[in-house]
């Protein structure tokens, strides 16, 4: 792997992210809308279970949503780069395809972890009490989940050549991933078929892992669905698989 190349791929993404105010604003606004409009509304309907309010319950899911959108957007910007030619500048350079994929996945991870951290810092508003170690734990999980989702997004991006496919990706990949991640309702309460789909979703394990940190004392319906070891192992294994698949796809030549 070429570290200068990884560095500059990440630096480019970061620079563009900072420059593009609207992207930052909508990236922060989306979770806030879901948390305070949807979450607050639903709280009227869903009573607290096992000491966890509905708003507290969806908080890990909202962090997951922040990561999902921003990692996926960052990765499918590859399609944009293909359409506008910049991808060729990268592909013709003497860097391994693994470097390109890792660089892109790290770009997505850094940008989305940053946003997730901004949302995470709202925890006092929800009546949550998190200590320094909880916050560090949550950030580490965010980094891992972001990397995994970004790598997944890269694999998706290799299937498309034109940005016209954006709305298809939005409707048929990103939105289902969000709703089938245990973000808004516990996976254990889903019907069999949907529960199966949720188990295939990388985001599910990220949201689940965050539940351990955000509401460690939860029990009953709103408690996590898998063990934390399972969560972390699945996230890491999936990341490796996605990076590998993405690299293979990039190595293909016409």
């Amino acid at each position: 792997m070429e570290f200068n190349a990884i560095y500059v791929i990440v630096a480019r993404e970061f620079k563009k992210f900072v420059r593009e105010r609207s992207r930052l604003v909508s990236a922060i606004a989306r979770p806030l809308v879901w948390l305070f409009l949807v979450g607050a509304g639903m709280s009227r309907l869903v009573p607290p279970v096992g000491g966890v309010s509905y708003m507290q319950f969806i908080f890990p899911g909202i962090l997951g949503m922040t990561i999902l959108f921003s990692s996926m957007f960052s990765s499918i910007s590859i399609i944009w780069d293909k359409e506008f030619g910049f991808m060729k500048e990268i592909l013709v350079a003497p860097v391994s395809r693994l470097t390109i994929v890792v660089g892109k996945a790290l770009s997505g991870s850094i940008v989305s972890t940053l946003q997730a951290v901004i949302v995470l810092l709202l925890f006092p508003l929800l009546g949550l009490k998190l200590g320094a170690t909880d916050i560090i734990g949550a950030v580490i999980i965010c980094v891992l989940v972001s990397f995994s989702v970004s790598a997944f997004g890269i694999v998706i991006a290799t299937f498309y050549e034109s940005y016209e496919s954006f709305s298809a990706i939005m409707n048929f990949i990103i939105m289902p991933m969000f709703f089938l991640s245990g973000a808004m309702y516990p996976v254990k309460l889903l019907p069999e078929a949907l529960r199966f789909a949720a188990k295939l979703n990388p985001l599910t394990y990220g949201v689940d892992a965050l539940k351990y940190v955000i509401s460690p004392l939860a029990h009953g319906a709103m408690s996590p669905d898998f063990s934390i070891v399972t969560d972390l192992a699945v996230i890491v294994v999936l990341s490796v698989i996605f990076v590998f698949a993405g690299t293979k796809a990039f190595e293909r030549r016409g």
Partner: protein
Amino acid sequence: MPIIKVENLVKRFGSITAANNISFNVEEGTIFGFLGPNSAGKTTTISILCTLLGPTSGNALVNGYDCTKESSSVRKSIGIVFQDTTLDKDLTAEENLLFHAYLYNVEKAERRKRVDDVLKLVDLFNRKDDLVKKFSGGMKRRLEVARGLIHRPKVLFLDEPTLGLDPQSRLNLWEFITALPEKYGVTIFMTTHYMDEAEVCDNIAIIDNGNIIAMNSPEELKKVIGGDVIYLKTRDNAKAKDEIKSMLDIDASTRDGELFISAVRGDTCIPELIRTLGDSVLSVRLQRPTLNDVFLKLTGKAIREEGGADTDTIKAEVRAYRRRHE
């Protein structure tokens, strides 16, 4: 040893054969031109040479490395300006170049200096902090050529570098490009479908439908035409035409209000014409054969100037339309 060596290269896309068993060599430090109409297979050949496409069969070596098996070494040896721009328009000129310097692992101590040097070379140093989206077509092209030079490549590929540029920018760009081999020892491999631009090349391969149909220096290629072309304007073209036929036994034809005569030696034919026609001659033009004539002769068709109807073509069409309707 040639710096580019292509042997029996074939590339098929389904039923389309974009490169049909082509072979050629390019010597180090020269300018080599790939000349042919749209869809001839120029971009496909460049894509194979710069490792973005794999050939269906055949071999290609750049700087001694195999384009299929040693792609990383090939990539280190080349710079490329693609047919369509590959700059990031949301970054500044300098940022685009720095991106490239990191990507090609230029040492830290050298990075800034090289970026500044190439910016000055293409006269964009004072615009380095501007976003590329604010640049004109010519500026973008210059920036891309500059970028291609940062890592000191052995071969610089230019795929239709002047496409879509106005005549002035085209001229400037060529002036700059043709100076590169001497300045940097870089070999230039360029493609174009503008016949006149290929004149700057040391050697040219004319490609049509995936086949190389001729390969030589521009001068040698033009010898196949075997003569010159004379355009003559007189007070009475019809009368002059008859006189030329009866006195000199040369067939002239009329084109756009001018008499058109093809002659083996134009320079000696002109005095004869003037002696014959006396002061009814208004103007005489001697035209050396162009690469366009070569292409016409070899393929039986003129090179199509498709795509971006430039203003000259539009003007010509408007004039033709008026002639027909007035």
